[in-house]
């Protein structure tokens, strides 16, 4: 959410392939602008989006860590994120695919051309098993690349970003509520299970009208107003 004209002009949504592609650098720049404007939750959302697009963007990782520290929120880290931050998942998937399929073709040729007709030539068997090994490793690498890709999970992830109240918005103040209640049932009067800090990353389990059923990082599940959530992958 941008509040000043400077921020708005700094980051325009790319045209053309806008629905399919986006620039992580643009989101990073947007995050810096939001941070300058004092809207740390919005900055954290932009940084998370930058890292979804390019998990190897080191500056975005460092900036997100700083922003979350200021917001007193823990930085989520899993082995997938750690691996993806070092090796681009897309590259891993591509390399695995090339190795896997090329060795698959080689295996087919070896098998049908009867290059290994007898046990008299052990070298050929060694070759067969070597190719088989690379075939399995290649496909495993491509699957690993897909698994660690943050985009695979990001479609179900939302960031808690409640809108500032109307008065603050009119005054271009990016003050958002510090916390939002997580409720036991989808009703304003329902009992409050927890107060979730703004900027928290949640998993969206289902959506029913103006209420969304979410799971927090600690595994707690409950209802939250849909209007206070922003999808990690923007819905164009």
């Amino acid at each position: 959410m941008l509040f000043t004209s400077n921020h708005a002009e700094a980051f325009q949504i790319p045209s053309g392939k806008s629905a399919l592609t986006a620039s992580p650098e643009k989101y990073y720049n947007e995050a810096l602008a939001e941070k300058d404007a004092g809207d740390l939750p919005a900055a954290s959302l932009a940084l998370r989006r930058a890292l979804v697009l390019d998990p190897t963007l080191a500056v975005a990782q460092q900036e997100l860590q700083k922003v979350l520290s200021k917001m007193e929120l823990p930085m989520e880290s899993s082995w997938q994120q750690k691996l993806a931050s070092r090796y681009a998942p897309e590259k891993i998937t591509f390399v695995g695919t090339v190795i896997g399929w090329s060795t698959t073709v080689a295996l087919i040729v070896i098998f049908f051309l009867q290059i290994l007709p007898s046990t008299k030539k052990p070298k050929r068997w060694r070759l067969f098993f070597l190719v088989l090994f690379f075939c399995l490793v290649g496909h495993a690498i491509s699957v690993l690349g897909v698994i660690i890709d943050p985009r695979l999970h990001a479609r179900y992830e939302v960031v808690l970003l409640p809108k500032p109240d109307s008065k603050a918005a009119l005054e271009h103040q990016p003050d958002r509520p510090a916390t939002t209640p997580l409720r036991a049932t989808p009703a304003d009067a329902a009992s409050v299970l927890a107060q979730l800090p703004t900027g928290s990353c949640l998993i969206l389990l289902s959506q029913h009208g103006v209420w969304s059923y979410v799971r927090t990082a600690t595994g707690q599940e409950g209802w939250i107003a849909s209007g206070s959530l922003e999808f990690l992958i923007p819905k164009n």
Partner: protein
Amino acid sequence: MKYALLITFFFASFCRAASPSVNATATLSRNRVAAGEVVQLDVKVTGAQQADVPPEIAAAGLQIKLTGQSSQVQMINFKVSSSVIYSYIVVPLKTGNLTIPPVTVRAEGQILKTTPLQLAVISSGTAAPNAPPQQVSPMGPGPTASSSRIANQRSNNVDRDRLGFAEIVIPKKKFYVGEVVPVEIRFYVDAHYGFSTMGPPNFGGEGVLTDRFKDPEQSREERNNCIYTVATFRALFAAVKTGVLDLPPATLDIAVAIPEAIPAGIDPDLFSRLMGGRSPLVREHKMTLKTSATHCEVMPLPAEGHPADFSGAIGQFRLEGSVAPQKVDQGDPVTLSLKLSGQGNFQALKGPQLKERQGWRTYPPAEHFEGSDVFGWRGVKTFDTTMIAQQAVAATPGSSFSYFDPVATKYITLTTKPLPLEITNATPAPTPTATAASAAGGASAPPSPVAAKSITGERLEKMTQHFWEDPLHQKEWVLTWLAFFCGAVALIGIFAGRAYAQRTRSPRDQERQYFQQQLLELEDTELDDETFYNKAAECAEYLIKQDASRLTELEEILRRRDEVNYGARKTFFKTEERQRILEVLTENREKN
């Protein structure tokens, strides 16, 4: 033959087992009744599925009529047993000790007699204290001509004062302010009558905080020779002020279903059958069950030895701590789990306090309670605190928790030691000297590895475009994968087709292909003489087999092969000869 004998033996033994001895027994539902009440007499015939019994039994001062029968067949360990029960309704016509004579039963060709039974009939104004309860409930779906009669009788004899009562169980009458005490309230209702509760029990009073009552536990209990249905409600309560505490009686509103008398002139058996075997008429009787009042003494917590971190925990607790993971990078969160187990006021419990938190950023703990009893009085409460190391630290903070033990009547403080863990890629903790140097504008300390590689804060100029969709959802990736997959399948298909065609070719075709292959190999000039003539001879033999008239023309090749293989001296062959043989074979192939 052997198997036939075995099978015969098996069936013989089975039939033998299936026809046990027949006997008959008689039992009374009650052996002591008030005048005007009825009892049920059951004649059970075991070992038979059918028996002849008298429809009426003549007895002095009693009217005994057959009302129905039920049968049962059981098979346990291939042993079949059957029984049939004939139910009689016994109506006393006078008071005194009356005798039910032996009942004569004819079953499986045998004549059996039951033992005589005694029935004490007392005047209706006298209670029957030692009388066992009726087994037939007026609310139940029982058989039920007799039960309807009994219900009819019961409706006239309901002692509303004996329908139910209540008791309260509080384990101790002297406790501390804020201490939670389990309370158990039992409501007893005569088991002969169905009942339903009309809301939760009312319990408590001024100066008492009561937890919500859990769903009641239902059981049966005998009191004063009467079976009662017991609804037990449990909860925790705590006193909030000191002094004498007068707890008013706990009450529960219930509705008891009492069978109504059948109007005169209507046959109760017929009425019961029309109602599907259930008690014909039932009336709801609302009543309130009440316990006695309870007096307790609430003591104040002692002021002596009051720890600074005491937050109102009263009970008996144990504290354990653990941390996971034990090896992390700086900036990664770790979770310090502090488990408080024991018994006490878990609901109002605040977590242990962390000590020596320098170098850590901590967040409010997540609480989780697992009760080990129905009250929630005993159990384990876990406080998971997420923490992030801000600098090189070797251990987590320690923790302390203070509570008041009402048994030991003193405050106790539990502590956990700092738990060791390893922080990797850590930024060294800032030293006072470095800070001073920096403040004075002098040479600053060398930047940390994290700071050195950090170029954050500057806007990026070079823009790249990335897909929002992951490979599994990208059309291009999916198509590429499919193309590879289809290519592999096509390759397998081509090769498999070729292999199949090769295998299914006729022997003649296979021979021809072999001949063509040999002929091709003969063109290799590097073949030695022996191999060349062997292959040439094979080709010649194939051609002769195809057409015997070629024998003369090709015989020379066979002769030369033999000469090479079996000749005693070394023969030299000219290249021209090999060329000529090849030409002859090629010509003949074309003729073929």
